[in-house]
């Protein structure tokens, strides 16, 4: 297929359609509304289900219902709306059924603003709904990646009976880039052995997240964690740039990662041996790749559009063996490459203390300028 210029949000919508999306339930919120708008035309045209729900709470529970029947189903929202969906996410996780959710993140907390941000990393990766549950979180940094990962997210969700989330910031949702759309997949209902789609001459089925006996719930928690080991072993994805001889390594996901790429290129042009690791799956996080790099690196720089959330995952891996520094722009501010370049230069000029708390030292630097 030839490349076309696709807007991120619309590309995700079309990619989902081509991956066999049978039902979409959503609610308007900037900066993801184009997903809803696009599918409000596209789904009825194909005779597939589309409902603009009364709220994100309604939307995620419609997703929950449709997911119980075993069809490919998705919702999308932006930060405040995703917060409302956390109830449903926990239930979907507890019921062990596949569903896809897209979060086009904006500045927060609270109503915040509609500018691009990455402040929902913790919510997506660690927190969110109640109870212990793993989930797969993919972080595209370009429109093509958004398309590819949307298609992948349905496969992963079904393979592991798990929520797969795409987190991208508003700028990837709004941006247009040349991208290749995969071919339209035929809808093939997979007849999962768990789906509640009407008994029709088989044993009846129940889908629920209730395990009233704590020992049964404990078993469920362990089962989820065991399944997560498979995900960690098989599904880690990341992209490396200029890492072969890198002494300094920048780590960033999504837009922060691609902005860092510009800075890394410029630093290379200035003779600094710096590379970039851009996690594509932020959950499972590429701990092993980072472990390998910990031997090679003189220092790390984590850059995010938040106050240092993925930073925790980096520090968990590096464990004080090498200096880790942080640079962030929270609240809906997108960093320019020169800001990250300055950080690279600062770190390359050294020395950087290994035991400092990178978040606190960054905060001191950030507030000293203000």
């Amino acid at each position, binding site marked *: 297929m030839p490349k076309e210029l696709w807007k991120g949000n619309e590309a995700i919508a079309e990619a989902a359609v081509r991956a066999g999306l*049978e*039902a979409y*339930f959503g609610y308007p919120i900037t900066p993801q509304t184009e997903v809803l708008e696009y599918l409000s035309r596209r789904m009825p045209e194909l005779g597939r*289900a589309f*409902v603009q*729900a*009364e*709220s994100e*709470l*309604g*939307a995620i*529970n*419609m*997703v*929950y*219902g*449709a*997911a*119980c*029947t075993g*069809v490919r*189903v998705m919702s999308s929202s932006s930060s405040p709306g995703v917060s409302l969906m956390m*109830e*449903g996410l926990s*239930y979907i996780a507890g*019921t062990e059924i596949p569903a896809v959710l897209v979060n086009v993140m904006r500045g927060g907390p609270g109503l915040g603003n509609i500018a691009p941000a990455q402040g929902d990393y913790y919510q997506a990766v660690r927190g969110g709904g109640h109870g212990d549950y793993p989930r797969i979180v993919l972080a595209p940094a370009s429109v093509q990646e958004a398309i590819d990962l949307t298609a992948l997210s349905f496969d992963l969700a079904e393979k592991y009976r798990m929520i797969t989330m795409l987190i991208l910031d508003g700028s990837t949702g709004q941006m247009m880039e040349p991208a290749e759309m995969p071919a339209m997949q035929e809808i093939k209902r997979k007849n999962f052995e768990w789906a*509640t*789609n*009407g*008994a*029709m*001459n088989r044993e*009846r*089925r*129940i*889908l*629920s*997240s*209730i395990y009233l006996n704590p020992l049964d719930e404990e078993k469920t928690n362990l089962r989820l964690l065991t399944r997560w080991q498979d995900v960690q072993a098989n599904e880690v994805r990341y992209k490396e740039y200029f890492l072969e001889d890198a002494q300094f390594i920048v780590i960033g996901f999504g837009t922060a990662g691609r902005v860092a790429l510009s800075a890394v290129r410029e630093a290379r042009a200035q003779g600094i041996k710096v590379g970039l690791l851009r996690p594509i799956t932020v959950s499972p996080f590429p701990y092993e790749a980072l472990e390998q790099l910990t031997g090679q690196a003189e220092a790390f720089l984590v850059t995010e559009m938040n106050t240092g959330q993925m930073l925790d995952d980096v520090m968990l891996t590096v464990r004080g063996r090498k200096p880790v520094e942080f640079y962030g722009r929270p609240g809906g501010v997108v960093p320019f490459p020169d800001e990250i370049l300055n950080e690279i230069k600062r770190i390359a000029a050294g020395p950087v203390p290994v035991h400092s708390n990178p978040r606190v030292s960054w905060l001191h630097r950030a507030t000293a300028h203000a």
Partner: protein
Amino acid sequence: MTTPNNLVYERPEAFTESPTHYCPGCTHGVAHRLVAEVLEEMNVVDKTIGVAPVGCAVFAYNYFNTDFVEAPHGRAPAMATGIKRVLPERVVFTYQGDGDLASIGMAEIVHAAARGENITVVFINNANFGMTGGQMAPTTLPGMKTSSSSLGRDVETQGYPIQVSEMLSTLAGVGYCVRRSLHDPKNIRLSKKAIRTAFETQVRGLGFSIVELLSTCPTNWGMTPVNSLKFVEEHMIPAYPLGDYKISEAVKQIKV
């Protein structure tokens, strides 16, 4: 097993053999049985998907011989929407209490009704939150004592009861909306007929259908089963009049 010649009562096939967990004298069991009989009589047990609520009926899925899912509190109409939209040929119903439907799930029920979702809702109104131990519900009568309105519901500070059937009947998406009661055999028969009509509304694609059933809660009301039936007759029905709140022209043609 031998079958007696004069068999007049047996477990519907739409029921599992699992004994229910409901309190003695509670009308949930009656309501369940009516739904089961209707599904069986309509020959749709095999293609029905039930949506259980959070509340006393949380384990409804243990009793019905159909596929079942268990919704978050109040969200059953949203889940039912998701199921029905991808499986329009199946029969989809929710079974919800008044805390579930009229309190936390008010948005979901109103919008499912407004969209005219082709689902059937069996709504149990027993004027309190049963499962959590008898707290005030939106349907609790003025002056009625509950564990969270221990001095009696004071409408000045705790608001007025919500009349769900009256409210939903104003929505164009609703095909069938009636209130019945389970306090005596005659009304139970009328309730069954209404449940049948509601499911017939759904299979004919005539829009949203809901049957509100005035029910008892002897345990939380602190009454004997017999007195609680009297309470329904003497106090609930005056506050929640029985009747047909909306029957669309198309639904009126259905003969059951």
